[in-house]
């Protein structure tokens, strides 16, 4: 009996601490007996860590995905080379490498932009709206609206949160960009596709940074989903976050 009540207060605290309101802290220890005060305080401390971790994880995930999208979108390199010599005059041609020449990289930028915007939006919503229930409702509404607008099966929004879908989108974007990067770096002898990284060195290295950052973002989003699912494990009517 006491365990279940303390667990409820602990999760209330975690949700409120994530939103930055500190009003509920004073209400919790008042109900506990003096013998259980130490364990209650330890629980509070432990759950404060969880709440802080959620915010930190979400900020980190937003940062890494936005950085990946930005670095890849601004990734361009060109060099001029002599192609032929007509008489005594050398003919120069400029070779450019841009991210939008490869559909895989375009998809990568779009997926990372979506993930970054989503994480930032959820961060802002949770920070601005201090009431826990309204914030969860707003995020849930956002999830539903976006999911039904994008024609994904809308009954799935009850079971699978938008965060999971966006994480899967991000994972596919990172995978496809990584396979194109591998092709650009090593080429394919059998298909007579020459590697381009020796000519466009900084394009390749910047693309590599963007892809690594995106993979880190995927791992962070996975941890984020697990943590928020565990924090909401006994409150199934508030799905997602």
């Amino acid at each position, binding site marked *: 009996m006491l365990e279940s009540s303390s667990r409820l207060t602990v999760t209330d605290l975690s949700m409120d601490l994530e939103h930055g309101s500190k009003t509920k802290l004073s209400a919790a220890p008042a109900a506990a007996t003096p013998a259980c005060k130490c364990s209650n305080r330890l629980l509070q401390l432990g759950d404060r860590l969880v709440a802080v971790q959620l915010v930190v994880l979400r900020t980190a995930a937003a940062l890494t995905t936005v950085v990946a999208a930005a670095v890849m979108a601004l990734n361009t390199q060109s060099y001029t080379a002599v192609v032929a010599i007509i008489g005594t005059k050398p003919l120069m041609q400029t070779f*450019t*490498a*841009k991210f939008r*020449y*490869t*559909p*895989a990289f375009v998809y990568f930028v779009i997926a990372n932009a979506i993930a970054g915007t989503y994480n930032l939006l959820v961060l802002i919503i949770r920070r601005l709206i201090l009431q826990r229930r309204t914030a969860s409702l707003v995020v849930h509404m956002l999830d539903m609206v976006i999911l039904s607008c994008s024609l994904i099966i809308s009954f*799935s929004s009850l*079971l*699978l949160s938008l965060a*999971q879908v966006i*994480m*899967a989108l991000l*994972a*596919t*974007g*990172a*995978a*496809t*960009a*990584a*396979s*194109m990067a*591998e*092709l*650009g770096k090593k080429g*394919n*002898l*059998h*298909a*007579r*596709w*020459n590697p*381009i990284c020796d000519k466009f060195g900084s394009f390749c290295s910047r693309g590599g940074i963007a892809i690594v950052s995106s993979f880190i973002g*995927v791992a962070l989003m*996975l941890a984020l989903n*697990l943590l928020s699912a565990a924090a909401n*494990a*006994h409150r*199934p*009517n508030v799905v997602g976050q």
Partner: protein
Amino acid sequence: MAKLSRLITAVLRLAVAGAAAAAAIIMVTSHETTSFFGIEMEAKYSYTPSFIFFVVAFAVGFAYSLLVILVRPGSTASRLVLLSDVVVGMLLAGAVAATGAIADVGKNGNEHAGWLPICPQVRAYCVHVEGALIAGFVSLLIHFLSIMYSLHAVAEPLCCSH
């Protein structure tokens, strides 16, 4: 009721395993040799690391789906299965995405990089890889459906005992 849900889960997982095995086997058996302007051109799945990743990922998906049928629903292992379902789903999605990127370059080429499409030369190989991709997509879709179903079967007891 529990027996029925267990049966449905088993059927879904068997479908995933079947489609994953089909995808891996079709990809492995893709092989074609042709001569192009006197030059011998050989197309095989093992010449592209993305295709090797595809085969390995779907072999893992096949083994995983078969193993998961043995888990009893309602035990703590079933919670772990929900977690690993999502991870394996992401693995399969990544494999399909990577293979799709290479297949797109093979079919349409990339004029900016000077890469010519190879599909006109090795048409049967292209069709084979397309078939493997379709089987991979089907496996991914059914895996997604089985995740939905297991969430639905697990979430209900959670909600009613609240």
